[in-house]
């Protein structure tokens, strides 16, 4: 293993580039196929957490036939422990806008939206200024494209892409069945590309520096860099851009407080990794041959030995219980029962063997829930209950 305890830092996202007009102008002149090919060869995957290849998404939407298409930037950053998108929109909004415009040109969209979570309303004014400036330039070069901010109103599930469409259409934010996927039927039933804020910022990097530069960073199946939102028991909380593929051991060495008991990778809907597994866990997308590979939207929460993992799990479950849209039974009832269940075990009202039943319930939710919210409750539930079984009981 090379360079133990050495995290590979990078500085692309927040690097101030003053040439977005040129990048946009050049990209608009290029053949659509060229840019799609470049994105595919960069192996950029969605940075919201799900990790769908961005180039393919754009390709599918460009091939869909429709009288109208949309590009939406998903800024409904609600995963506990994630706060990077706000920083991007504050510091380098023009990168996101540029990437949206390039996408619009490729797929044939005239309208773009930024779905901004209600909690970030204070960003709206500045962001609108950046958009106005951007529109002015588009106008100047006769490029017909407008971006509008759509405000959310406090609903975690609206970060799920189809729930986000429902919300924009004036409905309850209840996820749809997939397929059809957004690139075929998205907002208003039209082909839609929906990308996370950070994904679009990486597209800018690729447009400026080329796919190879991006591809050369990271590891196989997990190319490029990623923003990590670091919080919890750490002496240096904040946002860090790191190459993908790092081991959790190295991460903890850098960010831990010397007493790290576990790390929650990917927020409440991600996995909890206990200390004994740090060295086997790598941060990146699936496909690594050895060890555990953990995809993530970039939320890294550290817990030291003073924390009760029961309290942590209880906090997550309360969150899911409140944020479940209530549409499908496995998630609506499951979240409630999981939380009531662990409390009953803790109070001694149920035997410890009841935890096994709850684990099966979580597994059922993973299989039967309609969207990512309900399906991923099992991630944190099982990883916490399995690894900290005793803390759940005593």
């Amino acid at each position: 293993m090379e360079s133990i305890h050495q995290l590979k830092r990078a500085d692309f996202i927040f690097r101030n580039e003053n040439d977005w007009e040129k990048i946009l102008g050049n990209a608009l002149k290029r053949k659509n196929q060229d840019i799609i090919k470049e994105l595919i060869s960069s192996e950029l995957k969605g940075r919201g957490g799900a990790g769908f290849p961005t180039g393919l998404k754009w390709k599918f939407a460009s091939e869909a036939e429709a009288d109208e298409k949309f590009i939406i930037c998903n800024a409904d950053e609600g995963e506990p422990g994630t706060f990077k998108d706000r920083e991007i929109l504050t510091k380098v909004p023009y990168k996101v806008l540029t990437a949206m415009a390039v996408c619009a040109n490729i797929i044939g969209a005239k309208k773009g939206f930024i779905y901004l979570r209600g909690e970030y309303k204070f960003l709206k004014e500045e962001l609108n200024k950046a958009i106005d400036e951007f529109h002015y330039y588009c106008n100047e070069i006769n490029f017909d494209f407008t971006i509008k901010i759509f405000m959310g109103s406090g609903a975690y599930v609206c970060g799920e892409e189809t729930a986000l469409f429902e919300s924009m259409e004036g409905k309850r934010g209840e996820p749809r069945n997939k397929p059809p996927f957004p690139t075929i039927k998205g907002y208003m039933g039209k082909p839609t590309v929906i990308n996370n804020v950070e994904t679009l910022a990486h597209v800018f990097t690729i447009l400026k520096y080329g796919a190879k530069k991006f591809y050369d960073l990271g590891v196989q199946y997990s190319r490029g860099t990623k923003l990590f939102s670091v919080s919890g028991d750490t002496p240096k909380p904040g946002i860090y851009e790191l190459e993908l593929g790092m081991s959790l051991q190295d991460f903890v060495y850098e960010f831990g407080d010397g007493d790290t008991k576990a790390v929650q990778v990917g927020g409440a809907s991600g996995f909890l990794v206990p200390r004994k597994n740090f060295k086997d866990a790598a941060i990146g997308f699936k496909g690594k041959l050895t060890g555990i590979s953990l995809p993530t939207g970039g939320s890294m929460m550290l817990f030291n030995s003073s924390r009760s993992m029961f309290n942590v799990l209880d906090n997550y479950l309360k969150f899911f219980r409140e944020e479940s849209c209530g549409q499908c039974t496995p998630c609506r009832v499951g979240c409630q029962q999981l939380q009531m269940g662990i409390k009953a075990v803790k109070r001694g009202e149920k035997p410890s063997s009841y935890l096994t039943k709850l684990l099966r319930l979580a597994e059922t939710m993973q299989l039967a829930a309609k969207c990512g919210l309900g399906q991923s409750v099992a991630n944190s539930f099982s990883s916490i209950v399995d690894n900290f079984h005793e803390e759940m009981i005593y």
Partner: protein
Amino acid sequence: MNPIQTLIKELADVHGRRRESILPILQGVVEQEKYLSEDSMVEIAREIDIPASDVYGTATFYSFLEAKKMGKYVIRVCKTITCSMKGKNQVLLTIQEMLKIKLGDTTPDKRFTILETNCLGWCHKAPAMLINDEVYTELTPEKVREILSSYMKKNGQI
């Protein structure tokens, strides 16, 4: 036309009278009125010509669209994991002590409402809270007292 009807008409003029216009209109009403009364929801339904139950259904889904009358300043304290670990309870206790009300309640003078909310996205600067749209981070009881006092003074009350 009463003031609510006027407001809703104005909002519909800006945001349109389609189903997709509902959320921005609801948000506009909440910004002005601090909550959605039954009357305002019925009025929105009439203005854009859809069933009132649809407006109600949409409105009640979102945690920032309150159907209960709120104070002029809505305080939302983040209760998600990191804020919870970093002293959210002390923050909440301090606010409750100062305002002499319980979580979820509004002061008798209708100025302040205290609520808890889910992750605000300030985990690296926990604990955090919103007062209306304004964010306050790295809170301590002392800091909260200072912030809240300045809001209380704004209202000509110490």
